[in-house]
């Protein structure tokens, strides 16, 4: 019988759930692996080089800043995740200095100058992407054809994303035609798998291709399916909740459906519902960027407002704006007002029932 162990005294609770910050970060990284694998499959080995470089630079910068501030945050997983997200947000053909620069900017400027993990107001990966996008717009918006469409897709078409192509066509005065028709007119190819699926399901072949990931685009954003698989994993792990992704996508899809046809002269309810969800960086943005804990509201109510706001701005920038980057800019904009949302959107306090509020109101009168 041992009687005099060394005892620890601390405040309750004396139990803790098996969870930690780094565990969350690594789970999110794991959830991005399907999208990464698909990106490497369709865009080749260079895509892997881009992502690996982004991660390496992010972690080196994190390490150096940690040395400077005498904090060891390298293995909390956040720098790995930021680097991975920067990489997935790059075109596979981008010159290698760009992802390096984006990662360095993300970690140094967007994260550490505001106080490091938990203190930044903007999603670091997004800030990094927006920084290099507006600095090096041409290389950032030139893409290569995915392996699955390589033979059918001439370079001229491959260099633009479907969204970009439609935008250019509408800006050029193509009226009365929906996005899918415009793509077809411009000779955008579809895979034979998508064509046969389209014939049997009634969905448009382009919609199916964007869902599966047979389009030109950034490494991690092309396959909606791979991203959704990752997001479902996070939902099962209870790391992700539906609040932001669902409200974001629903508001964008509904607004696109009702008003999306206006710029191309199709009138109200002339827009397309599904293509708006699967194209561009929407899936990656809605599932993995907007949902960044640090830069999104903390309460469920606030998250719903945040999601709807993201959807609204994305709709606005996509259909009425002159520049690409609708998703990134929308999320950054909502990041800005997150502290305000947090200030006003508090959960209902226990006991603060309608009857109590009514009584308090009457007492005032």
């Amino acid at each position, binding site marked *: *019988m041992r009687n005099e162990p060394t005892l620890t005294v601390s405040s309750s*609770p004396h139990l*803790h759930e098996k969870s930690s910050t780094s565990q969350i970060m690594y789970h999110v990284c794991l959830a991005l692996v399907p999208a990464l694998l698909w990106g490497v499959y369709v865009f080749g080995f260079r895509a892997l080089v881009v992502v690996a470089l982004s991660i390496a630079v992010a972690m080196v910068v994190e390490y150096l800043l940690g040395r400077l501030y005498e904090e060891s945050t390298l293995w*909390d997983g956040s720098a790995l995740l930021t680097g991975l997200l920067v990489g997935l947000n790059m075109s596979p053909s981008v010159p290698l200095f760009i992802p390096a620069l984006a990662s360095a900017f993300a970690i140094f400027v967007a994260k550490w100058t505001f106080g490091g993990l938990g203190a930044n107001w903007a999603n670091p990966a997004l800030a990094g992407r927006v920084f290099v996008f507006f600095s090096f717009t041409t290389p950032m918006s030139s893409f290569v054809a995915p392996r699955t469409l390589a033979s059918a897709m001439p370079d001229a078409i491959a260099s633009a994303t479907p969204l970009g192509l439609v935008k250019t066509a509408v800006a050029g005065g193509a009226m009365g035609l929906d996005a899918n028709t415009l793509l077809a007119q411009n000779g955008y190819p579809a895979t034979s798998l998508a064509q046969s699926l389209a014939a049997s399901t009634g969905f448009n072949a382009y919609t199916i291709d964007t869902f599966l990931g047979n389009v030109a685009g950034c490494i991690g954003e092309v396959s909606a399916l791979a991203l959704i698989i990752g997001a479902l994993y996070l939902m099962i792990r209870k790391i992700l909740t539906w609040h932001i992704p669902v409200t974001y996508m629903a508001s964008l899809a509904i607004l696109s459906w009702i008003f999306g046809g206006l710029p191309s002269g199709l009138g109200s309810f002339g827009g397309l519902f599904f293509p708006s969800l699967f194209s561009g960086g929407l899936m990656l943005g809605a599932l993995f960027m907007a949902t960044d804990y640090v830069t999104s509201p903390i309460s469920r109510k606030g998250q719903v407002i945040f999601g709807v706001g993201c959807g609204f701005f994305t709709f606005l920038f996509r259909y009425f704006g002159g520049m690409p980057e609708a998703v990134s800019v929308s999320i950054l904009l909502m990041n800005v007002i997150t502290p305000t949302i947090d200030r006003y959107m508090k959960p209902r306090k226990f006991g603060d029932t309608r009857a109590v509020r009514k009584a308090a109101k009457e007492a005032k009168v």
Partner: protein
Amino acid sequence: MHKVPTFSKGGVHPDDKKVFSRFQAIERLPMPGELVVALSQHLGSPAKALKAKGDTVARGEKIGEASGFISADIHSPVSGVVKEIRKVTLANSVICDAVVITPDEDQGEEKVVAVDWTKLSEAELVAQIKEMGIVGMGGATFPAHVKLTIPRDRKIDAFVVNGVECEPYLTSDYRVMMEKADEALQGALICAKATRAPRIIVGVELNKKDAIAHLKAVVEEKGYPIEVVGLKVKYPQGDEKQLLKATLNREIPSGKLPLDVGAVVSNIGTCLAIYEAVTFSKPLYERVVSVTGECIANPKNVLAPVGTKVSDLLAFCGGFSSDPERLVSGGPMMGFAFFDQETPLTKGFSGLLALPPKKKVKRTACINCGRCVAACPIGLMPAQLYRLVDHGEYEGAMNNSLMDCKECGSCAFVCPAHLPLVHMFKTGKKLGRKK
């Protein structure tokens, strides 16, 4: 399908770990060599010592007198001699006077004079409960006679018995329900009479299905007007706010009492003490305590006199099987860690836990994940309160309802950054109150 009742907002699901002591019947502790009976075993002002060094005391004799409205009498658990009056530090860090008693070799027979409580009036019942020094035994130790005194102009429509025992490890209430169900239920009937409550509900979590079945059987056999309700397992359901939401679907507003929503809540162990106090004039001088945890050699539910030292309880349960990292009085979620094995047992000491070392996880900055907000049963924003207190903004924290925090620990339990949220709130409350 019938929906299993529980409270709706927040809550967490810690592993219940009751298996260590759950099947151990209550055992009486052999008389310890010395008892340290603290004079502050309840919420409110400490009792005043009625005995001095060298005095002899009889079992059940009053040795400390209540010193205010919210206070309670203290009785000697044994017949013996007062060795000294000295300062003692309790498990919850309260420092108070204690009467140290050396028990007599021969304790004599326990005299039993049964009184028929049904013949007593409300006022007589409450007076007897006060006289016997009964306090809430779930941990809060609020004097029972204060709780059961309902002003004439107020109406109570339900008396709710708390058999939830939502804290992991603890099994003392469970053993009471299994072994002393009839007495405890009669205690509930006494409370209902004292509070003029027409309805009695016993809430028990569904991880104690056998206790629910047993209580139901007793209720049926004796024909008591008592409802036994099974509740979905969720921490902190044993808090009176959450229990009333679960059983009656009523929410107690901030700063109000159960009385304000027409209910009174009392722990099932307290009901048993009340029954014994009223029927046998037995003061609250002993209680059932679960001595359990991974590091206890033979976990047990022990009926021990108030004033028993922790070291005596540990010795009775075979000591430690492995070195514990911490000793806790009460449950692991809200209980107090202490280090002195001379710490005495008090009326609210429901469990003695010896917990193994925890896996060390590095504390990180708050990442705003919102798990604390989702877990808070009161609807507070723990992450925000933490930041405010951390920055010394006590007033801001008060304005954001810091005082409504019950320190249940749900937020700190789920925090992936491993922030000491409850610790910060306790500090914030103390410093904020001072201003």
